[in-house]
């Protein structure tokens, strides 16, 4: 890596980066992590009308082979601790998409005593999709935004991953 760091960003590394990013974005396996209402919409998004499989996205039961965690629904404090563990079990590079108002900021349940107001208090989030629950179209757009974000990443030349400015669907 040290050698590569001295090389200015060249055509070759860019192309290789693009290839790597392309493979990653074309095969986003998401973890089945339906928490609440949004889980139903997530299922419908994987269903016949908004078929996520078109983009090469397949649901996976275990965090170990997942690239993407779609946090779909209200995150309670009891669940928040488990969510952190699950996130840590996912192998790098990993992404988090927060689906719905509840996991964005607590949404309707900010008034509740047992709800964690936003999944970003526990794990870093790449894309926020608003809605209560978001429509399948909204989730699809969020995922496409995530793909766009992934295409901008650089792996061969070390620079900070664009984590900070999360996209907003």
């Amino acid at each position: 890596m040290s050698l590569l760091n001295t090389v200015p960003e060249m055509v070759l590394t860019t192309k290789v980066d693009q290839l790597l990013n392309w493979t990653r974005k074309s095969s986003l396996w998401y973890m089945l992590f339906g928490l609440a209402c949004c889980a139903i919409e997530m299922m419908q998004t994987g269903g016949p009308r908004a078929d996520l499989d078109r983009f090469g996205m397949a649901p996976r039961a275990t965090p170990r082979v997942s690239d993407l965690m779609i946090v779909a629904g209200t995150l309670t404090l009891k669940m928040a601790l488990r969510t952190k563990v699950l996130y840590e079990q996912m192998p790098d590079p990993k992404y988090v998409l927060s689906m719905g108002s509840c996991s964005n900021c607590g949404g309707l349940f900010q008034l509740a005593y047992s709800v964690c107001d936003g999944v970003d208090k526990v794990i870093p989030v790449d894309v926020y999709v608003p809605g209560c629950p978001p429509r399948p179209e909204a989730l699809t757009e969020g995922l496409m935004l995530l793909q766009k974000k992934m295409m901008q990443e650089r792996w061969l030349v070390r620079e900070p991953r664009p984590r900070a400015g999360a996209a907003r669907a």
Partner: protein
Amino acid sequence: MSLELEFDDGREVFATEEMTLNMGPQHPSTHGVLRFIIRADGEVMRSAKADVGYLHRSIEKIAEKVGWHGFMPYTDRVDYVAAMTTNQAWAIAAEALGGVTVPRRGEYCRVIAAELGRICSHLLAAGAMGMDIGAITPFTHAVRERELINDLLEELCGARLTFNYMRIGGVAWDLPPGFDAKVLRFLNHFEPYVDELDDLLSNNKIYIERLANVAVVSRERAIAYCLVGPNLRASGVRYDIRKHLPYSVYPEFDFEVPIGTGRHGSVGDCWDRYIVRLDEMRQSARILRQALEGLPEGPVIAKVPRNYKPAAGEVHVHVETPRGDQSWYVVADGTEYPYRVHIRTGSFAAMSIIEELSRGLMVADLVALIASFDIVAPEVDR
């Protein structure tokens, strides 16, 4: 999994050790975030203790903070798979306390919306049942049919899942023009589809073998554990709130209450619970046809003050949701906030019996059992 054990008197036995398995809260077939702690000897379970509360969103406490009208959107989230019926339960409770009468057309709109929601919910239950047993196709087909209902309900109230359609005193909007024709067209398409689901899933040999005679709930146990709705009817009790403790305009409709007959095993097994839901979809379609036919004219919502303050009192309301008799206990103290709301849901009762039923089942059966009770996590946790 075996070890040599030595007793005090020196006898040596070849004993097996129990294994403790943790299933959930993130597990593909726990329908959301349920968790089971399974003590198993190999694949055979000694017990499966349920650990719930991973989706406890303190809805009952929120009711005390947001007021009578403001609580309506939260009732959607009590049971997001069939939000309409929960809406209705809250509306009925609030109306009873405030002495509000709903216009007849409003009641009909409610029935149409609720029955569409019931079909929607049972479709998901049947599909999820197939998926948990290992057949993936019925689920996507069920989702495909669900989308059609979602379209209809979206046209009705602008939301696909959390409708917030009903109001205290009636419904928010009248049926859009041409809605009844669309519903009829959907029903004409849907009723043959249920037969197709029968062919694809219900009469499949493997499916029957997996479900028949598994986790049989006798009539007595079902009543003692307060199982309700399809789970109770599958055990042979003909009791449906819509028929036997009628609310809204249900007495005006002619429909049957299907019960479990033990066609492939004994009464009250998983297959019975599944087929009761399938039959109920047909009955819901029947009610829908009658409701569309007899739809009266008039307003859909009564005049209800914005600052709703029912006089002090308490009420027990029972509403037949897809997961059975939802029992609401609402206390009013004469202010603009409810004093106490308690909801005893169908899934809650079903969850509490799982520990008893799980003894001697296999791990794969537990999955079928959860699916056959059609448990929805937020209904348990609220």
